């Protein structure tokens, strides 16, 4: 007999569902649903009490509507009511509705919790199960709070039914997952472990899941589970398939439980106890042996169940990584699966082998399957499987097979699915770099990569190839030749143009001796791509051109012609236009010495983690990229790492923070590395004199340092994870300086102009926004003269009206703190300038500006300060203040300094306000009212009614009034909630008596502030100042 009779459905529900299914359009469906929702709503709201059957019917309809993707915003209350029904059917449908529709932060949780509590204590196992299911499915914090104590008790109680125990175990697991803090370990933990011995395999399965999760968090508390799990596993594995009756699934004994137990054991290292360890090894061997037995059934379920256990056993073997024989057996087993006709098994075998490849015992064994894996890459129909094959090839790669694997991956890339191309590109790039024996192979590989899958080559990949070429002078000539040849292709990817532009700009001279790649040919080749490229690439090419002018004076005229053309000088893109203008100007007026200095070859990059590896890690999530380095130290002789440091000049590691100092200090020895000036092996004709002349120009003293700075300041090239310290510099300046530049140069003699260029160039580097081409020393920003920066005046914060100390201003570089004292009409302000960077501020100067009429009302005298502020240091400045007469405006403090060569301008209003010159006056009620009456002329009183901006706390208000400077007079106002104050403003010329009254209205959240003084301007000013404080 079927367990669910088909006849007991609900007629109304059936009709509704078939209505929906007969709807011809989405609109008709929505219309029908809305009609039904209206109907149910009216039924729920109606006066007539619904019977349980109707409620159930309507709730079922709502569930169906919800499944179709429509929001249900009512019915929750009815569902909660169903929970307290005594009828199973109604209760059950109520719980169903709640676990499907109620999310964890619903307001109803408290009501639901009540019903659950009743059911949990009902001792009716069916009801208890419903309640436990509900807790596990909703799993909210409130539920955890309510039941974290009950559930463990039910779980370990002796008289709990098995089915309830099962539910309780998983319920506890869920609560532990969602709110671990609310489920403390207790005396129940030890008893939970013993559930592994339970008669009922369902209970054991649930308990194993629970223990596995708990053991991951508190391995020590559950150590005893290891021996129990091994014992249990052993009994299952060795049992005849009929012993476990119902838990035998297609002739496999309790496959689920076996899998769970093997998972649990993966939380721990191999057992120390030799007996347990032996028993476990025996189990694993038995499982491996069974894999070789002929199947007991041809059904796929049989092999699935059997292999589920087998794969889990292999995972455990790999996890323990201690028994070489088992590891090799596991590897052989997986090798068999690699060619199995079941796709699922091939997939899983590839996946497991990935982890196996990182074990030193089995790495070699895994490598023997390389041909099968490569074959899988070529022939598998399923992209999921091919992806696993790529992963495995990546994991098994080492120096011995790198060339083969990289070649295979490259050829696969041509036909690979779009979804996985980028990942393959990253993997190829990493392997090519890591296992490069000679760098010509590396350069070839990356250029191939760009050719085959240019669109998927991310910035990091081509940044990296440039880093490596720059850092290794043995490959530079080859790289130049290769990119030159690659660029010959009629259509080449933009990424190739970028690499080509960069490399030829730096090393074009190395191949210029060959007439087939003479400077002009190189330039024409690059320029033929120019118009097909995007703006950033064009910008990079322009920088390459100016580098050409330095490398090859003979093409200067041609390049200047190009720069001078309208399409450059008047380009709509401001970046391109600016570069064209500046480069053209630079090429016209700078001497060859200066050009050679400014456009010197890039220095080596400091070694960091490969940016591509970082990207792959980020893409795949931490931990999922098998770190070949970590696991197989013996193989990681990174060609790149070791040799580079020898070519790196000592000052290559100059940190960006200290470069200003370097610039000013006597220059270190120039980094004039020996350059392969001669035509390398592949050029037959003798070198033309010009390039060598260009190279022979001695470096100006500061050039070496400058380039180090440029290198260090390019965050993009140097590993992506670490933001450069300079990223905290002010945002890149708007490129407005084009005209300025021309002025600078035209006003000076060539020599001076060049000097200016040389001095200005380094300044700009930190602000250069386009890191991809910072190999050109001059970026548009470089020629900014700092005067063009006009910082906005920072508004003073109101916070200083009622207090005298605090932080006045702060940005990434500078913090300004204040401390003030006032006595009568005099004041003294201590200003603290804190340098937040590690770099010295230079040319530090401050000035205070008081514009009319303030200048005659307030005297402000700042004392002089040191012109430098060391990194991390604080500088104190004293400002003396005298109030001549009452005033409204604020004095402005201007601060100027050079940071990183850029002139910084900051202006802040000084919080010197009229109330600072208050002297509090104590007086009694009678005096107060007498004076109050005296100041009754209309212009003497200023009143303001305003809304409270902060909470209306009496103590805070009192503190503010006292901070404002007046005396707070208690017991003066008949209404105790009002505040009354009195004081005298002292100025050099006069004194102004002042009374104030503040009436809060907490209901309306309003204040009324009244001020009476003998001067109308003072009343107004004080009222304005104080009104903003509440």
């Amino acid at each position, binding site marked *: 007999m079927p367990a669910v009779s088909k006849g*007991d459905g609900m007629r109304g529900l059936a009709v509704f569902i078939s209505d929906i299914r007969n709807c011809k359009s989405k609109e008709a469906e929505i219309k029908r649903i809305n009609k039904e929702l209206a109907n149910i709503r009216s039924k729920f709201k109606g006066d007539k009490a619904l019977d349980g059957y109707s409620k159930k019917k309507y709730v079922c309809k709502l569930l169906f509507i919800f499944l179709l993707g429509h929001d249900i915003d009512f019915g929750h209350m009815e569902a909660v009511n169903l929970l307290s029904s005594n009828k199973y059917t109604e209760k059950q449908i109520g719980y169903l509705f709640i676990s499907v529709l109620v999310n964890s932060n619903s307001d109803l949780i408290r009501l639901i919790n009540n019903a659950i509590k009743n059911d949990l204590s009902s001792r009716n196992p069916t009801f208890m199960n419903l309640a436990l299911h509900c807790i596990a499915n909703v799993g909210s914090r409130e539920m955890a709070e309510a039941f974290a104590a009950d559930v463990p008790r039910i779980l370990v109680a002796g008289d709990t039914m098995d089915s309830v125990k099962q539910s309780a175990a998983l319920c506890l697991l869920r609560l532990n997952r969602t709110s671990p803090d609310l489920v403390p370990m207790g005396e129940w933990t030890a008893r939970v472990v013993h559930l592994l011995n339970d008669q009922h395999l369902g209970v054991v399965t649930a308990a194993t899941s629970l223990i596995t999760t708990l053991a991951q968090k508190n391995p020590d508390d559950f150590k005893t589970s290891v021996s129990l799990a091994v014992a249990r596993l052993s009994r299952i594995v060795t049992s005849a398939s009929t012993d476990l009756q119902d838990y035998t699934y297609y002739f496999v004994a309790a496959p689920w439980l076996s*899998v769970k137990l093997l998972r649990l054991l993966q939380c721990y290292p191999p057992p120390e106890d030799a007996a347990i360890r032996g028993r476990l090894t025996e189990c694993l061997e038995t499982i491996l042996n069974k894999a070789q037995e002929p199947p007991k059934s041809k059904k796929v379920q049989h092999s699935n169940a059997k292999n589920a256990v087998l794969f889990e056993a292999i995972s455990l073997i790999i996890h323990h990584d201690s028994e070489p024989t088992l590891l090799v057996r596991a590897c052989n087993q997986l090798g068999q699966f690699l060619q199995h006709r079941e796709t699922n098994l091939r997939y899983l075998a590839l996946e497991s082998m990935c982890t196996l490849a990182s074990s030193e015992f089995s790495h070699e064994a895994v490598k023997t399957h390389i041909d099968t894996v490569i074959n899988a890459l070529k022939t598998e129909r399923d992209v999921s499987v091919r992806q696993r094959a790529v992963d495995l090839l990546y994991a098994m790669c080492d120096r011995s097979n790198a060339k083969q694997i990289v070649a295979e991956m490259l050829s696969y890339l041509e036909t690979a699915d779009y979804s996985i191309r980028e990942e393959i590109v990253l993997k190829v790039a990493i392997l090519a770099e890591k296992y490069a024996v000679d760098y010509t192979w590396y350069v070839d590989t990356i250029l191939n990569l760009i050719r085959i899958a240019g669109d998927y080559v991310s910035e990091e990949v081509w940044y990296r190839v440039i880093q490596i070429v720059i850092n290794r002078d043995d490959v530079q000539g080859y790289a130049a030749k290769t990119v030159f040849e690659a660029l010959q292709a009629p259509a080449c990817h933009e990424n190739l143009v970028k690499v080509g532009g960069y490399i030829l700009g730096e090393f074009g001279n190395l191949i210029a001796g060959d007439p087939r790649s003479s400077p002009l040919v190189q330039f024409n080749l690059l320029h033929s791509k120019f118009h097909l490229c995007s703006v950033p690439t064009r910008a990079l090419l322009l920088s390459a051109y100016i580098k050409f002018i330095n490398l090859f004076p003979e093409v200067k005229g041609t390049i200047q012609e190009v720069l001078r053309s309208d399409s450059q000088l008047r380009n709509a893109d401001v970046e391109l236009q600016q570069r064209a203008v500046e480069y053209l100007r630079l090429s016209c007026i700078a001497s060859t010495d200066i050009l050679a200095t400014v456009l010197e070859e890039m220095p080596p990059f400091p070694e960091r983690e490969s940016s591509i590896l970082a990207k792959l890690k980020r893409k795949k999530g931490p931990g999922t990229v098998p770190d070949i380095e970590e696991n197989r130290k013996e193989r990681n002789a990174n060609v790149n790492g070791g040799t580079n440091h020898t070519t790196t000049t000592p000052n290559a590691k100059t940190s960006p923070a200290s470069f200003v100092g370097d610039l000013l200090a006597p220059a270190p020895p120039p980094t004039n590395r020996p350059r392969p000036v001669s035509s390398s092996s592949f050029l037959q004709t003798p070198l033309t004199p010009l390039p060598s002349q260009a190279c022979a120009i001695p470096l100006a003293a500061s050039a070496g340092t400058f380039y180090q700075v440029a290198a260090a300041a390019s965050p993009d090239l140097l590993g992506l994870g670490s933001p450069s310290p300079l990223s905290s510099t002010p945002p890149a300046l708007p490129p407005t300086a084009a005209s300025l530049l021309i002025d600078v140069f035209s006003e000076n003699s060539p020599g001076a102009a060049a000097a200016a260029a040389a001095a200005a160039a380094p300044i700009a580097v930190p602000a250069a926004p386009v890191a991809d081409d910072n190999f050109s020393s001059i970026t548009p920003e470089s020629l900014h003269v700092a005067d063009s920066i006009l910082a906005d005046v920072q508004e003073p914060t109101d916070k200083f009206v009622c207090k005298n100390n605090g932080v006045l201003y702060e940005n990434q570089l500078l913090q300004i703190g204040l401390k003030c004292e006032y006595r009568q009409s005099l004041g003294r302000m201590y200003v603290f300038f804190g340098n937040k960077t590690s770099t010295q501020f230079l040319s530090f100067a401050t000035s205070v500006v008081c514009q009319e009429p303030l200048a005659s009302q307030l005297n402000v005298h700042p004392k002089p300060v040191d012109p430098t502020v060391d990194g991390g240091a604080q500088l104190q400045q004293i400002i003396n203040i005298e109030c001549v007469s009452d005033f409204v405006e604020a004095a402005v403090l201007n601060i100027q300094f050079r940071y990183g060569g850029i002139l910084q301008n900051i202006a802040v209003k000084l919080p010197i306000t009229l109330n600072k010159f208050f002297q509090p006056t104590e007086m009694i009620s009678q005096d107060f009212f007498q004076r109050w009456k005296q100041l009754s002329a209309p212009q003497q009183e200023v009143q303001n009614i305003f809304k409270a901006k902060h909470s209306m706390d009496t103590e805070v208000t009192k503190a503010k009034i006292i901070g404002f400077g007046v005396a707070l007079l208690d017991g003066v106002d008949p209404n105790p909630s009002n505040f009354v104050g009195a004081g005298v403003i002292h100025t050099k010329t006069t004194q102004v008596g002042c009374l104030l009254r503040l009436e809060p209205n907490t209901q309306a959240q309003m204040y009324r502030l009244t001020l009476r003084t003998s001067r109308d301007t003072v009343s107004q000013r004080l009222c304005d100042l104080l009104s903003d404080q509440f």
Partner: protein
Amino acid sequence: MIKAILIFNNHGKPRLSKFYEHYSEDTEQQIIRETFHLVSKRDENVCNFLEGGILIGGSDNKLIYRHYATLYFVFCVDSSESELGILDLIQVFVETLDKCFENVCELDLIFHVDKVHNILGEMVMGGMVLETNMNEIITQVDSQNKMEKSEAGIAGAPARAVSAVKNMNLPEMPKNINIGDISIKVPNMPSFK
């Protein structure tokens, strides 16, 4: 842990969705659509595992699915579950449904959403496997049905309505489709809306 269990038909119409992690209703519907899109474009006879869609957690999660006649059964699981084990679980689920409904078909899932949820609830709880023994599951479901019967007095008439609905729009006789050793009779229905 099982993150979600989805059943939808060949046209992407959801027939059951059960999420064990909280998502907004909108996201749930999007996940169903995304999952359908991922699964339905795959050929028959490729492997039953693939990386999850972006919405449900990308490559940290796997989709393990089976296609039975008109229905896809998809389990979205994290790395702590055995792939083949979940595949078995889907089989147990379908076999159980088949026993409970006597040759289960898509219509049974539509008209008995509550029952299907109940059966699933006996197998999976809060994203963890509760019971894998089919007899145990059926015993539980049976005892619930008995309770239901004893409580219900009014359940006679709708039976006719249901059978009427089931028999309409049926141009052909149902055909048998073999899945393992059970055969689910699946009516060749016109496309569902």
